[in-house]
């Protein structure tokens, strides 16, 4: 008897809270890219301070998650660190969704190595030989390096799960359109996990958004060719396009945004919104936003 009473009270309570929240505030569902999740959360927090009637619910999980949710019609705004594929847009249209793309910022994709790794300048062809299926570089000594704390000499390549936008972008830029990753990469399930693992593993090399850099990890200086000048990733080099692996960050809406969603997106693209993304370590879509 007791249990049923408790149960029904709980259920009644749940129904009540759901009703209250749905009547009082408009909730925008925002999901996707792990690269964007921190800044999306910061936007949502700032926005809810300004506009008490709108609550933005943000969750991560990877660009693939957000795009899948957009295709399945379970999200209002999908975050992605890669463009939607032609196939995905087709699938979305067949399900009655019409994804519209909005560029909300730029991100420098950093290559991370262990703090004790002496090699800090890496060229894109070398990266391809480390990460690519046809690549031959499996040991650090092949690059002329010995890392203290890595007696096995084996290169531990840290990658992302295959639905990640970062995974897809890195593949396209480093390995080429037809390129494939080699077997035996450690596939992490989040941007932060990559940096965490590289931080703890002297033999490791991995890639992730620059915003996840910490002082306990080494960041690679990237050059386009073996003997070219290398460029450090930064907001500045991402904006002026000198850093070779910087990419746009997207938000997708179903159809042209209307109502509160349009107001929210316009706010994100405004100076206030763009100043927030700059402070989080990403490049804004225009100059002079924080003045």
């Amino acid at each position, binding site marked *: 008897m007791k249990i049923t009473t408790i149960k029904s009270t709980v259920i009644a309570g749940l129904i009540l809270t759901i009703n209250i929240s749905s009547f009082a505030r408009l909730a925008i569902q925002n999901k996707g890219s792990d690269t964007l999740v921190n800044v999306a959360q910061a936007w949502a927090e700032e926005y809810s301070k300004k506009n008490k009637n709108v609550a933005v619910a943000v969750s991560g999980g990877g660009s693939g998650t957000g795009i899948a949710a957009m295709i399945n019609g379970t999200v209002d705004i999908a975050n992605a660190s890669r463009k939607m594929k032609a196939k995905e847009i087709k699938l*979305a249209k067949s399900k009655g969704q019409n994804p519209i793309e909005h560029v909300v910022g730029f991100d420098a994709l950093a290559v991370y190595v262990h703090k004790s790794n002496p090699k800090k300048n890496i060229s894109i062809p070398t990266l391809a030989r480390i990460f690519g299926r046809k690549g031959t570089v499996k040991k650090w000594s092949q690059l002329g390096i010995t890392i203290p704390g890595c007696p096995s000499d084996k290169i531990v390549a840290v990658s992302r799960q295959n639905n990640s936008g970062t995974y897809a972008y890195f593949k396209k830029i480093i390995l080429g359109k037809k390129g494939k990753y080699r077997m035996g990469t450690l596939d992490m399930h989040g941007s932060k996990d990559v940096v965490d693992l590289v931080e703890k593993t002297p033999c490791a090399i991995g890639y992730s958004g620059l915003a996840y850099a910490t002082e306990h990890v080494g960041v690679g200086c990237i050059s386009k060719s073996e003997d070219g000048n290398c460029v450090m990733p930064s907001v500045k080099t991402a904006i002026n396009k000198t850093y070779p692996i910087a990419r746009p960050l997207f938000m997708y809406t179903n159809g042209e945004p209307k109502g509160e969603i349009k107001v929210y997106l316009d706010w994100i693209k405004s100076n206030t919104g763009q100043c927030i993304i700059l402070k989080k370590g990403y490049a804004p879509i225009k100059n002079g936003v924080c003045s």
Partner: protein
Amino acid sequence: MEDLNSISLNSQNEKNIGSDQLDQRNLDWYIDKAVSMIVFIAGISAIIFIVGIFLFIAKEGLSFIIKDMDFTEFFTSPYWEPSDEDAPEYGILALILGTASVTGLAMLIAIPFSLGTAIYISEFATGRTKEFLKILVELLAAIPSVVWGFIGLTIMNPIIIKLFNVPVGLNILNAGVILGLMAAPIMTSIAEDTLKAVPDHYREAAEALGATKWQMIYKVVLPAAKNGLLGAVLLGVGRGFGETMAVLMATGHSINIPTSIFDSVRALTATIAAELGETAQGSEHYGALFTIGIFLFLITFIINLSADLIIRGVRKK
């Protein structure tokens, strides 16, 4: 007393009033019917669920199997790259080897442990020790798999790195040890039940012939219980194949054809867990994951069924 009264009252009523009253469909009758119906539904619910689940998995995977799947590629290619835009690759060989290697190592660890524990509990331990051990084993079986995974990630990982001087401690060894410890309690419980089912007069006869305790166990008890013990091992294998969370956390999640126990691998279950939430329903990738699901379902079904048949064979004797 009350019952007697009511019966006599009823019989009086029957005399006075017509045959309608012979119909005893009162509240108790309905309750009885309703309860037996509920119990019946609960009883066959397992069948309904298993058929329902299989139909669901088959339906989701079917379009992939018919339209896009290349059987030879699926089972013999080690390349799993389903999100590639132009040329997606759906090979699960590396995943099968990952699952098999982890389960194999887990069994190497779990079989001696669980058989030893079962023999000790059933043949040597007495009184309080026996009860205490049985409760402990059951407690061990109740630890959630995510906790085991966490142990693999945070405790085993640095130990393996230090001990064996390998770059990454998330590998077959780590997952195998974790999975072995997870499977051992279940195997112990079943093995102990089988040993208990060996009739005592076998033991008495052996002792009467002058056998030592070890001779009795080795020559009489174990052969008599061998089917049940095999069943216990098979259930452990089934557990190993189906385990997801702990394996996802402890293997390193790396598509790899393993050549040593220090290689990171990826399991079939872990692949489904990591990728299913992020695929669009109805896409090729989604269908491929469900096809892995069908494959896993068939394997665990065969393993569990044969375990069950073997154990049943013992009981009949």
